[in-house]
Structures are given as structure tokens and as C-alpha cells.
């Protein structure tokens, strides 16, 4: 690991004249002390600028490069900062010229990699940051811990897996494939009393159906099935057979449409919820403010423009009051968001059903018979309904996004669908009569019936084979993503708990070394609920949380320092040094020495 050897400064902040600090002698720690304003913090500032190209507490106050130059340093000279490390390949000079352009003297890849790695480590703790963690909320502590141990990425992967899993389960194609298989199977159950799971099932059914026709054929494979169909066609009137098949297809399509047009209540349910939502459009538009409010909350909490100052107009504000107001508004927006999400899921269901109706209308169009006046009315209604339904689907998809009013198409829902509801039940018996009338003899009627039945059974079996394959793949994907999600959540819980245990053990060890026999023991982090982390400890033998309850300010400072030390141990993999700047102001001398040791 890398340690500091020498730091040389000139013209940087409090160091106008050249200053050199030599850490070559091997000491566990070095304390720099001196009068106020003597330039102690200049060392920390220089190191922070070297690694991060900024100094957080100054940049936060909008004091940038111009503050890095010592006010008495000649304008025509570059600021110099030179650092020597235990690994001499990383030694580098950093300069800042009069135009505030900075430059490293070391341009090697090794040095650049080292800088990048160092940016991820915890190298500095200043007085102003000591209490930052201790005073965070439970959820913020959890996020901060994830950052400290570098597990924020882990949390992001978990969120992605959870949302991908939810989305797969709600996938409209998945539902539609499942519904289509159910519909096909319902037809088979109605006509032959069983579903067809294999070629064997299909051939058995065909052989049973053709038995009364005495064709002298036993169907055992696709070739014999085709031979069987051809034989029926040869033995009977081909034109009438084709007509019978067309009538059978239309009958099936109309039966399906009859069921589908009853499913408009989900659309009505969506329109009611959506109309309710639209009553206060402005309310919905306010959801767009959420991100801004959250960012504002962070800016005020992190005091980026200072304490009790408005980040926008820079006038004075009561930060706590504003934060409370933001929290209330975010809560209100969360409620509105829930209403929108609810309407959105009703929209998805309505769309799914509208698309099923559309599919059924398309099937009727494919099977339509145009040379029979009995079907003119239904053909006309179906054609109009198709056009209107296309528009209704487009409206739901587009107007919802734009928050525009969706008018229910009364022609479609009250005229065309109502017509279909009355026309189809009248037509179905007529089709049956027409099919019966086609056959001149009982034998021919049986031939037509068997021909249509085995044709439909064969087609449905083939359709279901494709649909089932798709469904199997869907189910395998859902099952796999769900298992991966569950394993990941379990792993995340284990690693977070392990990290918390490790940090707890170190924080407790460091704290007891610095505050022996003061009644504060067993300091640990515990997971609180699903999304929180909190310090716990025993105070004179009694369980206590949060630490603010009993600990004095100096003890809270000490706790903050211990957490920093534990996080250094956990996250610093490259650098074997860190800087504590003015963190022990509230410590008495008895507590200062143990920290140095």
C-alpha cells in the first residue's frame, strides 16, 4: 500500500513560502499542532486538491481555484504542490498557474490509475463532517453505508432485477398467449370433451371421429391424417364440403367474438378512474416536480450553498422548516403517483381486453362469407367496429400519456357492440341450419361434421403447440429471473449484514479504546426494517438507540471518528494513510492521546 513520504508546498493557501514536510520516518501517526490560522488545514487542503482537484468545503461555498493562491503570492508564479510516495513511480508535482489551470507533472498510466483508485477511498475527515453520519436518518445511513463499502452498485442491481421481474409477470403478450391457449382448450372441451396434448392424442381423436365413416384408414402420423382428409373430400361433394367448412370457421369466430364483446367493463372501469384523475390535471403535472424537490432536499441537507440559505435566490430561509415542507410535498406527490399508477394498471387491463376484441373481430373478417345476404349486417357491423376500435385503442394509448380527455365512442360501444350482441345469437342457429341443409343425407352430414371437427382439432393442436412453446419460454424466463432476483436479495442481505458486523466490531473496538470504562459498550449497526440502518449501543448496561439519546457531543464526535476509521479500514485498498483535520476540538486531553495511538 502507498504511504506519504514528503509534501512540498509553495504559494498554496496559508503557505506563501516553500514548506516541506517529511514523513519518511516510520511513525504510526503524525500530529500537527500550532496556533489558530497557522496553516495546519492547508496541508489537508493541499492533499484534497491533489487527489480530487477541488476542496469540498470551499467549493460548497463557491470558493474555488482563486482561493487556492496565497493572497501575497506573486501573480506571475505557479502554485507548486509536490508529493513523494513510498512508491516513487507515483511521485508528482501539481501546479496551478495564474489562469487557474492545473497540471500534474506525472503523466504515466500508473499515476492516473492510482489517482482514480484514490478517489474511491476515504482519505480525509474534517470537523464539519464528523457528525454528518451520526445525524442521518436510518434510510440515509443505509445508503451511506452502501456507499462506504462500495455496495451502491449492488443495490442498483437489486432494483433492476425486482423491476424486470415485475414487468415480465405483467407482460401483456404473456397474458395474451395464456388466454389464447385457454380459449382454444375451451373449444376442444366443448366439441370433443378433452384437450390435445400430443400427436398421439390428436390421432386417437381423429380415429374415433372417423370410425362411423368406415374409411378403412387408421391415422398414425401426419401423412395418414392428410390421406384421411383427402379421402373424405373425394367421397363427398367437394363444393358443399368447402362451404360447410367456411360456415364452421365463421361459427367458431362468431362464438369467440360473442364472448369477447362482453368484456368491455374493464374499459369502463379505466375510463371512470381516468376521468377522476383528470379532474385535477395540475395535481398530476406536479409529479414532474418530484425530482426537483428531491434534488432541492439534498442541496439544503448537504448545505451546498450554506446553512439557512435558499439555494435558488440565496436569501435567508429556515432550513428545517423548508425541509419539513418539502417532505410534506413529496409525501403528497407520492399519493398522487399511487393514483396515477392505479389508473395506469387499469389502462393496461383495458387495453389487453380491447386488443382481444380486436383480434376476435379480425378472425370474423378472415372467416366472413360475402355471398350470403344473411351475413351482410354482421359483416358491416364488424367492419365499422374494427375501424372504431382501432381509434379507441390509439386514444387510450396516446391520450393517457398526454392527459387528454378520452371520450367513450358511443357508436362503437352502444351501437356496434350492442348490434353484435344481438346479431350473433341470431346468426349462430342460422349457421347451424345452413350447415345441416347442405347435407343431402345423414351420411353426408356426418362426413361434413367429422371433416370440420378434425380440421379444427388439427389446426388448434398446431396453434397450441406454437403458443405453448412461447408460454413455456415465458414461464422459464419468469422462473429464472425470479430465482435470480431472490438469490440476489438474499445475498445482498447477507453481505450488508456481514459488512455491518465488521464495521460494528471495529467501531466498538476503536470507541472502547478511546473511551475506556465510560459505560458505553457494545456499539453496533443493525438493519432496521427493509431499508434502514441504525447505531445501537448499551449505556451502563441498558440497550439504547439512537446514540443521541444519552451521548454527549464529544462522545458523538468520537463515534463519528470511529465510524470513519472503520470505513477507512474497510474501503481503502491503495492508500495506507488518512488525514483527520481538527476533529478532536471537543475532546479533553485524556481522550486525545488514545486517538493518536
Amino acid at each position, binding site marked *: 500500500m502507498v504511504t506519504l513520504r514528503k509534501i512540498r508546498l509553495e504559494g498554496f493557501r496559508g503557505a506563501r513560502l516553500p514548506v516541506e514536510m517529511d514523513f519518511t520516518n516510520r511513525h504510526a501517526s503524525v500530529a500537527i499542532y500550532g496556533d489558530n490560522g497557522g496553516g495546519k488545514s492547508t496541508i489537508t487542503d493541499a492533499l484534497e486538491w491533489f487527489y480530487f482537484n477541488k476542496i469540498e468545503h470551499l467549493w460548497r461555498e463557491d470558493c474555488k481555484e482563486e482561493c487556492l493562491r496565497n493572497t501575497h503570492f506573486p501573480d506571475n508564479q505557479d502554485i507548486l504542490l509536490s508529493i513523494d510516495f513510498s512508491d516513487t513511480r507515483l511521485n508528482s508535482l501539481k501546479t496551478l498557474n495564474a489562469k487557474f489551470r492545473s497540471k500534474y507533472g506525472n503523466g504515466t498510466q500508473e499515476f492516473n490509475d492510482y489517482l482514480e483508485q484514490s478517489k474511491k477511498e476515504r482519505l480525509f475527515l474534517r470537523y464539519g463532517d464528523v457528525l454528518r453520519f451520526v445525524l442521518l436518518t436510518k434510510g440515509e445511513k443505509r445508503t451511506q453505508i452502501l456507499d462506504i*463499502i462500495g455496495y451502491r452498485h449492488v443495490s442498483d442491481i437489486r432494483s433492476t432485477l425486482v423491476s424486470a421481474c415485475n414487468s415480465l409477470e405483467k407482460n401483456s403478450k404473456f397474458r395474451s398467449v395464456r388466454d389464447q391457449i385457454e380459449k382454444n382448450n375451451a373449444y376442444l372441451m366443448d366439441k370433443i370433451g378433452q384437450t390435445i396434448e400430443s400427436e398421439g392424442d390428436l390421432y386417437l381423436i381423429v380415429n374415433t371421429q372417423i370410425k362411423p365413416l368406415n374409411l378403412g384408414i387408421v391415422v398414425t402420423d401426419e401423412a395418414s391424417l392428410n390421406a384421411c382428409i383427402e379421402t373424405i373430400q373425394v367421397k363427398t361433394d367437394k363444393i358443399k364440403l368447402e362451404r360447410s367448412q367456411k360456415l364452421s370457421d365463421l361459427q367458431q369466430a362468431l362464438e369467440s367474438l360473442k364472448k369477447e364483446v362482453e368484456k368491455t367493463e374493464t374499459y369502463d372501469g379505466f375510463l371512470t378512474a381516468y376521468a377522476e384523475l383528470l379532474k385535477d390535471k395540475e395535481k398530476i403535472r406536479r409529479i414532474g416536480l418530484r425530482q426537483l424537490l428531491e434534488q432541492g432536499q439534498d442541496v439544503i441537507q448537504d448545505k451546498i450553498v450554506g446553512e439557512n440559505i435558499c439555494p435558488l435566490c440565496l436569501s435567508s430561509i429556515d432550513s428545517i422548516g423548508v425541509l419539513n415542507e418539502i417532505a410534506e410535498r413529496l409525501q403528497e406527490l407520492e399519493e398522487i403517483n399511487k393514483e396515477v399508477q392505479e389508473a395506469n394498471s387499469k389502462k393496461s387491463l383495458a387495453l389487453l381486453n380491447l386488443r382481444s376484441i380486436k383480434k376476435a373481430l379480425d378472425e370474423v373478417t378472415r372467416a366472413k362469407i360475402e355471398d350470403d345476404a344473411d351475413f351482410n349486417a354482421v359483416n358491416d357491423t364488424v367492419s365499422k367496429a374494427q375501424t372504431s376500435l382501432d381509434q379507441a385503442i390509439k386514444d387510450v394509448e396516446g391520450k393517457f400519456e398526454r392527459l387528454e380527455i378520452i371520450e367513450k365512442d358511443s357508436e362503437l360501444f352502444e351501437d356496434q357492440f350492442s348490434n353484435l350482441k344481438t346479431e350473433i345469437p341470431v346468426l349462430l342457429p342460422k349457421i347451424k341450419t345452413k350447415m345441416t341443409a347442405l347435407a343431402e343425407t345423414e351420411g353426408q352430414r356426418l362426413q361434413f361434421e367429422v371433416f370440420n371437427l378434425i380440421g379444427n382439432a388439427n389446426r388448434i393442436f398446431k396453434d397450441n403447440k406454437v403458443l405453448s412453446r412461447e408460454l413455456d*419460454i415465458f414461464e422459464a424466463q419468469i422462473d429464472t429471473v425470479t430465482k435470480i432476483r431472490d438469490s440476489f436479495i438474499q445475498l445482498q442481505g447477507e453481505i450488508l449484514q456481514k*459488512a455491518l458486523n465488521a464495521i460494528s466490531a471495529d467501531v466498538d473496538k476503536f470507541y472502547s479504546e478511546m473511551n475506556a470504562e465510560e459505560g458505553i459498550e457494545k456499539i453496533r449497526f443493525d438493519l432496521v426494517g427493509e431499508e434502514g440502518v441504525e447505531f445501537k449501543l448499551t449505556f451502563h448496561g441498558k440497550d439504547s438507540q439512537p446514540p443521541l439519546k444519552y451521548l454527549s457531543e464529544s462522545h458523538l464526535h468520537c463515534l463519528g471518528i470511529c465510524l470513519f476509521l472503520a470505513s477507512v*479500514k474497510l474501503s481503502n485498498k491503495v492508500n495506507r494513510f488518512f488525514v483527520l483535520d481538527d476533529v478532536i476540538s471537543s475532546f479533553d486531553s485524556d481522550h486525545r492521546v488514545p486517538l493518536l495511538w
Partner: protein
Amino acid sequence: MTDEIIKSGEEIVNEFFEQVLKDERLDRATREALSDLFKTGNFSKGAIEKRLESIREAAVKEDGDPKKN
């Protein structure tokens, strides 16, 4: 002590997806897709949906390919 924890978040997630890739109890195409999206830095909900959809389409198309049958 923290010395026990030597793995970074990145290492943990990498190892997890390596294990996922080897887990034969899981659907092969799905585990390969998720691992690949992770490795290539495209691990998002949208990318997962898209990749899984293309796997379904390809599998159904392959089944319907007369050359295969």
C-alpha cells in the same frame, strides 16, 4: 474485524453472475442473457425486457423453421 471483508461490491456482483451462468437449474438462455447484459454494462429493466423478447421470438421462429423440422 473488517479484515474479513475483502470483496468489493463489484467483485460480489461479478461472482454472483458467474455463479448464475453456471447454475444449470436455471434456464440457459435467460441466465446467459442476464450475465451478458451485466458484463457489457447494459443491465437495465428495458434491456432485459428487450433481450428476453428476442430470445422468445427466435425460439418460436426456430421451432417453425421447416429445415429444422
